[in-house]
C-alpha cells in the first residue's frame, strides 16, 4: 500500500483529495491544525469507505517548530508502518490574510504557510520520498501569473496587499517545484503544481477581514466542488511513469508564468534555505 501525506486535509481541496486517494487504496496521512476537525475529517472519510486507511496528525504549520515536530512524528510512523517510504507529499495547506501578520520568526503569514512550511516539510521528509521515488505536489493557483517575486521585500512589509501576497506565495510554489526538479530530480523524486481552478472552499473566509470574506462568499459560488481538482492530484500520484510536466489543471499540463525561470527558482531556494535554517537541503550539500 502506497502512503501519501497531505497537509490542510480537514476541509476543502485537501479533504476531498484525501477522500479520493483513500478510496483509490492509498494509505493517507492527513495533517490538520485542529484536533477536533482532524477527527471529524477522519470520520467523514471512514464513514463513506470503511476500508479506508487514514491517519491524522495535528500541527499548526505556520510555526516552524510545529512543522519540525510533525515531520518527525510522520517519519517515525513511516519507519514503523511503511518501510520508511513515502509515495507522495501534497503541500496543500494555505491561507489568506487581510492584514500583514507575522509568525514567531517574524515571517509574513501567507509566505510562511503557503510556501515556507511546504519547503521545510519536503526537506524533512525527503529521505522517505527518495526511497519511494516519490512525488511532491503543491497546490498552486492561476493567479501566480499576475505577479513577480518582490526580492527586496519578500514579506511585503512596505506595501502589503493581501492579493499580492497570495499571488506571490503561489508563484513561490511553482518556483519551488521547478527548483526541486532541477536541483534534486536526479534523486528520483518529481515535483508538480496543481492549479485547482476556482473551487468552492472557505479559504477566503478563514481569518480574513470582512471585505475579503464578503467578496469571496460571492466568488466561491461560481467555483466547482473540490472533488474536481482532487482528480488531478490523484492522477499525479497514480500515473506511471511519473508525468514529465510541472503545472497541471484538470489532468492536463498547462502553461505557467514567464517569471518561472531557473534563475528565480535557485534564488528562492537559497533564500528559503536561509529562512528555514537549512544547510544541506534534502540532506545533500551542493
Amino acid at each position: 500500500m502506497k502512503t501519501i501525506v497531505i497537509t490542510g486535509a480537514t476541509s476543502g481541496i485537501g479533504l476531498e483529495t484525501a477522500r479520493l486517494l483513500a478510496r483509490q487504496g492509498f494509505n493517507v496521512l492527513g495533517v490538520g491544525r485542529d484536533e477536533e476537525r482532524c477527527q471529524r475529517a477522519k470520520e467523514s472519510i471512514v464513514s463513506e469507505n470503511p476500508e479506508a486507511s487514514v491517519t491524522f496528525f495535528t500541527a499548526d504549520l505556520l510555526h516552524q517548530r510545529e512543522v519540525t515536530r510533525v515531520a518527525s512524528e510522520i517519519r517515525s510512523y513511516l519507519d514503523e508502518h511503511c518501510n520508511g517510504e513515502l509515495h507522495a507529499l501534497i503541500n496543500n495547506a494555505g491561507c489568506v490574510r487581510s492584514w500583514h501578520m507575522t509568525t514567531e520568526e517574524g515571517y509574513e503569514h501567507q509566505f510562511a504557510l503557503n510556501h515556507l512550511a511546504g519547503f521545510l516539510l519536503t526537506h524533512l521528509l525527503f529521505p522517505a520520498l527518495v526511497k519511494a521515488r516519490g512525488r511532491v505536489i503543491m497546490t498552486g493557483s492561476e493567479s501566480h501569473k499576475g505577479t513577480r517575486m518582490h526580492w527586496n521585500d519578500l514579506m511585503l512589509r512596505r506595501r502589503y496587499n493581501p492579493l499580492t501576497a497570495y499571488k506571490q506565495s503561489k508563484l513561490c510554489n511553482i518556483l519551488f517545484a521547478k527548483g526541486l526538479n532541477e536541483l534534486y530530480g536526479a534523486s528520483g523524486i518529481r515535483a508538480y503544481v496543481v492549479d485547482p481552478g476556482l473551487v468552492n472552499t472557505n479559504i477566503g473566509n478563514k481569518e480574513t477581514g470582512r471585505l475579503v470574506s464578503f467578496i469571496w462568499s460571492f466568488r466561491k459560488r461560481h467555483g466547482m466542488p473540490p472533488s474536481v481538482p482532487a482528480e488531478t492530484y490523484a492522477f499525479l500520484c497514480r500515473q506511471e511513469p511519473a508525468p514529465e510536466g510541472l503545472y497541471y489543471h484538470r489532468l492536463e499540463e498547462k502553461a505557467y508564468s514567464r517569471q518561472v525561470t531557473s534563475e528565480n527558482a535557485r534564488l528562492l531556494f537559497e533564500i528559503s534555505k536561509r529562512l528555514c535554517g537549512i544547510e544541506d537541503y534534502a540532506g545533500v550539500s551542493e
Partner: protein
Amino acid sequence: MNVFITGAAGGLGRALANECASRGYNLFLTDVNEEGLARIKRGLERQFDVAVAVKACDLTSPESVDEMLSFIDRHRIGFDMLLNIAGLDFEGGFTRRERENIVKIVTLNDAATLRITHAILERRRPGRPFYVVFVSSLASMFPMPLKATYAASKRFLLDFAISLRQELKRQSANVLVLCPGGLATTPEAMRGIEVQGFWGKATTNPLEEVARKTLDRVLAGKGIYVPGLLNKFLSFCGKIIPRSWVAAVIRWRWENAQNKWLTGHDNI
C-alpha cells in the same frame, strides 16, 4: 544604531523589531517569553544582516531587571534608541477582575516602563542623539469604563512622555508617544476587534505601517503619533467633549462588545 525593545516577542514589539532590522539597526530584545525571543532572534538574523542580542526578563521584577542590566553592562552595550512596547490588559470590569491582575497592569505598563527608561537612559551611547518611544493608546484620550485601569495606565504614559520630552529636549533626545487604536497583530486579536463591530474595525490600523511610521516620526523629532484619520478625530473629540459624557458612551459600547466577547468564549 543600537535599539532596545521591550515586549519584542510578539505583536507591535515584533513588528518594530522587524522594521528596525530591515533598516540595519542592531537590536537588544527583551520579553518575558524566552522561547519567543529565541525564535524572533533566529528569524531576524536569517532575514537581515544585523546583530540581535536577546535576554528574557520579567520587567515587573526589579531583580530580573537588575540581572538584565548587569548582563548589558558586562557586554558594555550602549543604546541610541529605546522602544517601550511591553504592556498588558485583562478583560472584564473592575470588580470582576483578579485583584493582583489589576495591580499588575499598572506595575508593568507604568512602573516597569519607568524603571527601564531610567536604566536605558543611563546607558546612552555618549555624543549621539537618543530616541525614546512610549506606547500609550487611543484609550488614553478618554476615561474608559470597563477598561478603567488600562486606560488610566496609558494616560499616565501619555502625560509622562509629553513632560519627559521637554526635560530631555536640551540633551539631544527625542521622546515620542504612540497612541494606536486597534492593531492587526494576530487572527485572535482580529476576532476580538470584530466583535466590537464597525468602530472596532474602523479604529484598527495595519501593524507594519504603524511600526514604520513610528520610527520615521521619532527620528524626525515628532512628539505624538495617533495612527489613522478617524483616531486623530476621536482623540480630538476626547479633548473637547466633557469627560463624564464620553465615559457614559464608552460604557455602553464596551458593555455590548465585552458581553459578546465573553459569551463567545464561554461557548467554545
